């Protein structure tokens, strides 16, 4: 067992629109040694599901059990403070994960290829630089499961190749949990997949089955 979701329900409350249940009673197990893709149209609840798995949010009901280290959500949004420099943000993350700052910064400088910009405030970064920094940092800290929201859209083609090569090298020790609304992106990295539709999660043992189901429910 790696990550187990038990009866996970997530409801958001808003004064304007009232209650909205984003995830309905989700039960799923993500096993070690497999990389999972999560398919779903925009707004289906993929990101909420990932936030709950990462521990960034708590479910309204149910529980998440996990016995692996899970990265923060990698993707477009970053939790970096934009008035601090990349290096200062890096140090902060190292401190809360108890990682060696020197080793991590060496790795990130080599991997993220942002050069001297690491000493610039993050607000001056392009979104590509931001996600390359977040990505390199998570690679340096070495998690057992990498959670990636909306595919590996970070950076240009060369960077994506580099990231893919790095994941390939880590196959033995690290798994990926990837969301996308494009089945193609998931086929590339994952061997199992699930589909989030109307707040419910359906898990499949192969990406093809998931893709078929996904196309079936979204065509309607």
């Amino acid at each position, binding site marked *: 067992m790696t990550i187990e979701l038990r009866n996970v329900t997530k409801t958001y409350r808003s004064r304007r629109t009232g209650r909205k249940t984003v995830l309905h009673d989700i039960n799923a197990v993500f096993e070690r040694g497999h990389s999972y893709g999560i398919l779903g149209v925009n707004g289906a609840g993929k990101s909420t599901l990932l936030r709950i798995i*990462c521990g960034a949010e708590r479910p309204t009901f149910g529980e*998440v059990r996990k016995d692996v280290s899970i990265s923060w959500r990698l993707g477009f949004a970053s939790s970096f403070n934009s008035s601090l420099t990349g290096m200062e943000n890096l140090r902060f993350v190292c401190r809360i994960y*108890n990682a060696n700052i020197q080793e991590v910064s060496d790795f990130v400088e080599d991997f993220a290829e942002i050069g001297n910009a690491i000493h610039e405030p993050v607000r001056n970064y392009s979104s590509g630089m931001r996600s390359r920094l977040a990505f390199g940092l998570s690679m340096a800290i070495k998690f057992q499961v990498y959670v990636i929201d909306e595919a590996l859209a970070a950076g240009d083609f060369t960077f994506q190749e580099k990231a893919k090569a790095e994941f390939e090298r880590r196959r033995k020790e690290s798994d990926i949990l990837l969301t996308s609304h494009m089945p193609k992106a998931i086929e590339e990295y994952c061997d199992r997949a699930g589909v989030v539709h109307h707040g419910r999660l359906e898990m499949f043992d192969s990406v093809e089955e998931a893709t078929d189901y996904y196309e079936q429910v979204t065509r309607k």
Partner: protein
Amino acid sequence: MAKQLPTSEGYAAPFSTRWFAELGQCLTIMVRVIFAVILRESRTRYGNSNIGYAWAIIDPLVTLAVFVGAFSALGRSSPVAAPITVFFVTGIIPLFFWRGAVGQAANAISASLGLLSYPQVMPADIIIARLLLEAATTVIVFFLFLIGLNILIGVSPSWFFGDPLQLLLASLGLFYFTIGSAFLSSSLARILPIWKNIWGYMSRPIWLLSGLFFTLEQLPTGIRAYMTYNPVAHMVEWFRSAAIPTFDSQAYSIFYPMAFATIALIIGLVIDRMLLLTGDEEIVS
């Protein structure tokens, strides 16, 4: 590999070996996170202002100058048998600390939502980090005042250490009082966004009513009865009694502000826990 966080795999019986081990693990993570947040906050807190940390000393200094100036212009003498600067500094220091910390706590969570997406960072960590940073700043400002007054107008530092043990107790009491107020303030801000505005309007009058320019003891009994409802005034009076060698007020209570702080702390922590359990940061907004 990154260190794994404590899992929710079952619950350890209280006071068992495993329970202590898990508690130790959680406390280690908490200390690490608070330390990291302190370092981060010390860089971001005055980030938008060019004078940076200097503001932390300029703000109380201006207040001191204004009040000393007003008192001399009105020809009033110090309400205690000590130099007027000593009287004001012993009021300004606790009040700036308290007001600063409560204001910081009100903004702590909404300004740190990015940080909270890291699972090991909890709302309480951010509040504690801000409190510690504020306390350290206050201690530094206090000593700068001491040195500055001694050099510029020859006020001996001994005016501030009438009873060192009492001063230590009063400072710890003030810290506890501020912890309670800060947790309540932060929780109120999370369930009632308007709290920040209310605090903005409230903080100045409260501050003036808390004994910045008077002592509870000098007030006539009638007014004093009303003024003693304000727990902050008791804290200031206690701090002054402990610090100023020639002043020993009989008009303050230690029990009242401590009870206030305990109730505030409990309410603050209960709201925090409720928000965590429902996983619902904006309950009413």
